Each structure stands twice: as structure tokens, then as C-alpha cells.
């Protein structure tokens, strides 16, 4: 009997080692990891000039291209969740299945760079700048992860960023985060954010857009009567119609519930609205290529439900409430507000500085005859790409 179990152990051990090694050789290399949202190491080129780098690359390659790695990552996530861990894959997991990210503190130098870039850009372009501080999920819902998540950084980020923007001449701060904290409790906030995504849902984004529009009216950029209200849009509840694949859930191989509350709004009449991905009229695209690409499908995510993170696109709406032409510089928190601003402004140019390097800001403002620049970034995002773009 001892011999039998000994032989079984040997066969199983070497069988697993050799089997996986052979599969690794036979199976084609994977390009990227969905769970980790990164490109996987490709087969190294045997460059003998740097042996340390060569062996390191092969080590990484062996890990990244391990057979069925994505499934093994899923098993790892399942084990983490089964243990009831509150922090895994750099994400807080609450007992109710809410996922929150790690709160980072903004640095003083990044704030100083932002202020100086904003002042410079506002001065050069000569148009009003409105910087909207958008409430990041942690801002409103960090209480869900108490006592394991310290909201200190998140809260101080808001006040520090607000103070910094207020000190920038030629720039108005729209404190949407402050409005949210004042108006909505945690229960209401829970309806405005996706449970398993980094972002808010259409309801949260809509409330934020209203808050920004009110600030624009206070600044005289639009009139109070122009501010669109809820019933100016077509609202739908997509809950149950599609699974929502939250970007934080992806870190856990979508093991958490994909049955999210999915409110959705759109402009009522889209017939006369035009979309372009070029500064001139050369590249006209369909609305369905830009807005809500995944609508009607069985799976939705933040990008397919709203607009994607395109470097540049612009919208023309002859039936808009205001004849103003605005430029929005934004991060992904802006995406669900595109239709709101389409309803409000006759022309909206939208730039994601992470993916746009073509025409400098001042040139663009002059060429497109921009009336105001709106910056929409969540409050933990003082992006170096934005600062670079503002500095021209």
C-alpha cells in the first residue's frame, strides 16, 4: 500500500509539472489579462547583452503565460472572497458586496502644478474656466467600508483641491462634491453609484451635471432657464435587462454579482444631433458609435453604457437650449453626462487629455470659437496629462 501511494504521489506530482510545462509550450500565448487589465509579457528575445534582464523576462513570461492563468486568477479571487477578506486586489470589499478603491492623498506639488497650469491656460485663452470637482465613489460611500477604510485622505483631497482651484485666478470652482455631501446621505448615494464599478451611474452623473449647469448659470455663462431638468430626458431602468460588468468586479474575474441597478437617460430627440471625431467636419460618425455602444446587449460596462474614453469628439445639437459652444476637458467620470451637455449646448467639444495630444489648447479654443472651458475630473484625479495639455 505504501508503495502504491508513493507511486501515485510521484505520478501526480511529475504529471502536474510536466503537463503544465507541455501545455505552456503548446498553447498560444495570451496577449492580455482581463482581470488585471494589463498586457502580458511576450516571449522574450534572447538578447545576451543583458543576462539579468533576459532571465528576469523569462521568469515574468513563465508566470504571465502559465496555462489557464486567467482561470487560476479567478480561483485566487474566489479564495479571497470566500475568506471574507475586506481588502483584496487593491480593492475594499464591503460585507454588502460594494467595491471601493484605495484612497490616495493628492500631493502638494501636483496641486501647485495644476493651479499654475490653470491660471496660465485661462489667461492665454481669455475664456471662462470652470473646474468641476466630481465626487468620487469613496467620497460618498467610504462609510460602507468602515472601520477598515480611512476616509481622511478622501475628505482632505476635496478641501485641498477646492482651496487650490479657488486660489487660481480666472478659474471658477464648481464644488459638486460639496453639493453631494450636503444634499445626499449614504442611502441616496448608494443609488447613484455602481456597486462593483469605480464610477457613478447615470443618476449620480445627472445630478452632478445639474449642479455644474447651475454653477454655469450663476457665472452667467448660461441663463437659469437653460438648465435642463430630469423630465427633459428620456429615462429608462435597465436593471435586469443586462448584466453590468463593473471594472472593479473585473479584478475579481466578475465573481461578484453583476445584477446592478442601471438607471439610464438620453436626449429625447437625437435626429438632428451630429457627432464628429475630428476637429473639422471630415470624420462624421453615428451616435451609436460614440454613445451607448452596448445598449441592447446582454452585457454592459461603463464604457459601452455611456461614452468611451475617446481622445476627442464633438457634438452639434441645433435644438440645444443654449447657443453656447463649450470645451470639456474630462476624465471618465464625465462620460455619463455627455447627453446632458448635448441637450444644454449647441456645440460641445470633449477632450480626454490622457488620449489627446494633437492641437494645443489655445489654438483649439480659437479655431473652434469656444465660449467656455469646463473641466470635469473626480477629486482624486489631478492628472499630469491634464496639466501637460493646459500648459500647451
Amino acid at each position, binding site marked *: 500500500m505504501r508503495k502504491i501511494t*508513493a507511486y501515485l*504521489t510521484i505520478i501526480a506530482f511529475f504529471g502536474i509539472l510536466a503537463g503544465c510545462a507541455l501545455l505552456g509550450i503548446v498553447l498560444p500565448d495570451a496577449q492580455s489579462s482581463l482581470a488585471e487589465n494589463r498586457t502580458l509579457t511576450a516571449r522574450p528575445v534572447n538578447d545576451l547583452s543583458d543576462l539579468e534582464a533576459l532571465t528576469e523576462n523569462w521568469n515574468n513570461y513563465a*508566470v504571465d503565460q502559465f496555462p489557464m492563468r486567467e482561470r487560476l486568477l479567478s480561483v485566487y479571487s474566489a479564495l479571497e472572497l470566500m475568506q471574507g477578506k475586506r481588502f483584496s486586489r487593491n480593492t475594499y470589499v464591503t460585507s454588502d458586496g460594494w467595491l471601493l478603491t484605495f484612497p490616495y492623498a493628492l500631493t502638494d506639488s501636483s496641486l501647485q502644478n495644476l493651479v499654475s497650469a490653470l491660471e496660465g491656460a485661462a489667461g492665454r485663452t481669455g475664456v471662462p474656466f470652470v473646474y468641476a470637482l466630481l465626487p468620487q465613489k469613496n467620497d460618498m460611500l467610504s462609510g460602507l467600508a468602515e472601520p477598515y477604510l480611512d476616509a481622511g485622505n478622501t475628505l482632505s483631497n476635496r478641501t485641498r483641491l477646492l482651496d487650490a482651484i479657488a486660489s487660481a485666478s480666472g478659474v471658477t470652482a464648481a464644488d459638486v462634491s460639496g453639493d453631494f455631501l450636503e444634499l445626499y446621505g449614504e442611502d441616496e448615494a448608494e443609488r447613484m453609484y455602481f456597486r462593483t464599478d469605480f464610477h457613478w451611474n447615470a443618476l449620480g452623473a445627472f445630478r452632478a451635471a445639474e449642479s455644474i449647469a447651475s454653477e454655469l448659470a450663476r457665472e452667467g455663462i448660461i441663463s437659469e432657464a437653460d438648465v435642463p431638468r430630469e423630465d427633459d430626458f428620456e429615462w429608462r431602468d435597465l436593471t435586469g435587462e443586462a448584466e453590468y460588468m463593473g471594472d472593479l468586479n473585473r479584478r475579481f474575474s466578475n465573481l461578484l454579482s453583476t445584477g446592478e441597478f442601471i438607471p439610464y437617460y438620453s436626449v429625447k430627440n437625437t435626429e438632428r444631433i451630429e457627432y464628429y471625431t475630428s476637429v473639422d467636419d471630415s470624420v462624421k460618425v453615428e451616435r451609436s458609435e460614440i454613445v451607448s455602444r452596448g445598449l441592447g446587449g446582454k452585457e454592459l460596462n461603463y464604457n459601452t453604457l455611456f461614452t468611451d474614453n475617446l481622445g476627442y469628439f464633438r457634438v452639434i445639437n441645433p435644438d440645444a437650449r443654449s447657443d453656447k459652444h463649450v470645451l470639456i476637458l474630462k476624465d471618465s467620470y464625465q462620460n455619463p453626462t455627455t447627453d446632458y451637455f448635448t441637450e444644454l449646448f449647441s456645440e460641445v467639444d470633449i477632450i480626454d487629455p490622457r488620449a489627446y495630444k494633437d492641437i494645443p489648447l489655445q489654438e483649439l479654443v480659437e479655431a473652434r470659437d469656444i465660449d467656455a472651458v469646463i473641466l470635469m475630473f473626480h477629486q482624486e484625479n489631478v492628472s499630469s496629462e491634464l496639466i501637460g495639455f493646459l500648459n500647451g
Partner: protein
Amino acid sequence: MGLGSIIFLYGFCPAFFLIYYLLPKRFRNAALLLFSLAFYAWGDPYCICVLIASAAVNFLLGRLLSGDRSARTRKCIFAAGCCFNILLLGVFKYTGFIFRTVCSALGIERTAPVLPLPMGISFYTFQAVSFLADAYRRRIKAGPVGFSLYMMMFPRVMQGPLMRYEDLAPQLDARTVDAERVAGGIFRFVIGLAKKVLIADVLGTVSAGLGAVPDTVAGAWLGLAAYTLQLYFDFSGYTDMALGLGGMMGFTFPENFRYPYCSRSISDFWRRWHITLGAWFRDYVYFPLGGSRTTKPKLVRNLLIVWLLTGLWHGAGWTFVIWGLFHGVVICIEKLAGLEKRKIPSGVRHIVCMFLVMFGWVPFRSAGVGEMSAYFARMFGAGAVGAVDSTALLYLHDYLPLILIAAVGCTPLVSKLCSRLGEKRPALAGALRCAATVLLLLLCTVFLVNSTYQPQLYARF
């Protein structure tokens, strides 16, 4: 390449054992040497020259020592060999430390030269000194392949266990490889892998996540507890892997750990922790200095020299000197006061011993004396932002079960239960061992592809 890395497990291991088992016995040592060189070259491609040079010089000196020469000549050869090895270790490991210390003493601001630290240099240098000392005393002889394997064999080259050439030599000539021995080696290897990957690396995220100096009292104690367990599971896991691989090839290497965290005094701790290093210092430093059969002042001197060297062996820094001397002083007190022989409840002995061991790990883990002082201060509330914060609470919530499992794993409880089961139900015990081997291997693979693997802590010494 670490013994617990994916490339070793799923590349090196199957390739090596396939060739090793297929080859006739007389070629196995040569194959083992070639694979050992490849293993080392993969992990440290440039410093393999240092290892080969060290092996070559020590082999030649060993040949000279084993020849028919006058006592004076042999003494000179031995002294030259010791100087060579100390110089080799000194140049690669201590140049920066000595440079910084001298500059600091003279008040000069200069950047210390940075030399690469060859992988396992502390281990293979001690192996070489051990060989020369034994060749000098007993005129032992070694062949080139046998001696090279003694110095470079891949399971042992990075972190030991240290052993005498005389203990390895008979196994190089004749060793048995049968199914039970190989299966036993596999089981031991996988247990070691699990200790490293499933426990040590995970606890490493706790001690690292809480920071070099945690903000709160709870964080400081939790971080220290996690580090204490991490260090044991990391190093003893490596030793299990080395012993397991040895077993799979038919070798028997000496044990390095015997439940050190069950010790009842620091002297007892060092009879259980890194046993082969303790034996090396005992045989080649402590006894030659006069050992314990001498006057009390000389005993204290001998102990402090041994522990100063033990500290320095572990790292080139003042924190390691402090750690070594701390253990030396405690052992002196234990010996002079005869504490081990006094009637003190074993529970009290154990608790005091564990606190002393844990206090010792503070300088051991700290990057500098300042960090060490701050850590000690934080443990007792000085400079802390509070008793507990969200980070400490989070780690406590997420890792307390693992810490408790690890704490139980430090005791012989599981081993005793397995032995008892093996005596009463051998068939069931065998089947469970087989199932555990497969399950733990797969689980370790899941953790390893999740990129949680970290190089062994002891490898940096």
C-alpha cells in the same frame, strides 16, 4: 531562480528530474553539477564567476592541505585559505558597510561603492571554510565533481543547510533512490513550498503593508507578529524544499529547524533555529576560542565574539550587529545565571523567550538604527497616532485566521497528529499525504501565478 518560482517548478524541475532519473547512476553527479550551474547562472548570471572561482581556489587549497606536507606549511595554507574566503566575503558583502562606517567616523561625505552581492555567498563561503578546516584537521580528500557539488548543489547553494563535506561525500558515491524516498521528498518539498507561498509570502504583505514603522501601537505589534511568523515559514519552508529535493535525488541533508518558536530560552532557541549555522559557529569559532570550559570572563568574550559574527554574517549593518549582540548578551545572562536549570514555569519561560525573540527581530528587519528605534518606540506608544487605526484593523480582520493557523503550524501539533494517524491507519495516512501533495501544489500554483511570489528573505543574507 528561487526554488518556489514558476520557472523552477514547471521548467527546471521536470527537465532536471527527467534527465536525472533516466541517466545511469554514474552520470548523475555530473548532470546534477551541470544543472546546478545552470540554476545559479539563471539567478545570478554574472556572479557565477565568483562562485566558480571560490570553488576552484578552495578545491586547490584542499588538495594542498590533504597532501603530505609539514605542519607549518599546512598551517600556512589553511591560514591563506581562511584569508581568501574572509576577503571574498568581505569585499562583496562588507565593503559598503566598512566604507560608510569609516566615512562617518571621519566625518567625510562620500557615496559608498556598490558591489553586487553574489547569491548565497555567505553560505558557500562558510561551506568552503568548513571544508578547509576539516581538510586541515583530518586531511579529507575531495574529487573535483564532488567538491563542486558540495559548494554548488542547487537545492543548497542559496540558503543551505550548511553541512560538512564528510557528511555529503558518502552520499555522492552511493545513494538510494526508491519510490518511497522520492515520494517522501516530494511531500517535504511541497510542504516547504506551501509554507513559503501560502503562509510566508501572504504574511509578508501584512508586515510590508503596515509599513517599515507602523503608525499605531496595534500596527507595530501586528506587523512584528506577522514578520516573526513570515521569517520562520519563509526560511523553514526553503529548508523543507531543499531537503525534499535532496530526498528526491537520494540525498539526506541535515535538518535546520526544530520548532524554534516552542523554545523556552534563547539558548534553546538557537538549538532549534538555523541549527546548521549554530553548529558551524560552535565548531569553527566557539570551540577553537575555548568554548564554555573556561573562565567566566573568557566565556562571555567567546559568546560575544560568536554572536557579533553571527549578526554580521546575517547582514552588513549596525542593526545586525545589534541583533547579534542582543542574542549574545541574553545567552550570557542565561548561562551565567544558570536560568535554564532554574525552576521557572515553562509557560513563563516560553512567553519571555518569544518576547525576546520578537524584540530581536525588530533590528533584524529594520533598514537602519533610526528605523529600529522608531519601531521600538511605536510598540510602546511613543510617536504613535493612536492605539489602533483602520489599516491595523483591516489587516487584523483579513489575516488573523492565517496568523492563528501559522502559530499552530509553529508547533509540533500537526506533525504529531499525522504521525499518530500514520501509526493507526497507515493506508489512510498515505492516501491523505498523496492528496495533500496534489492539493497544496495546485494551490501554490494558483498563488504563484497571481504574482505573489517573493524571493526568500534569507536569500539576501
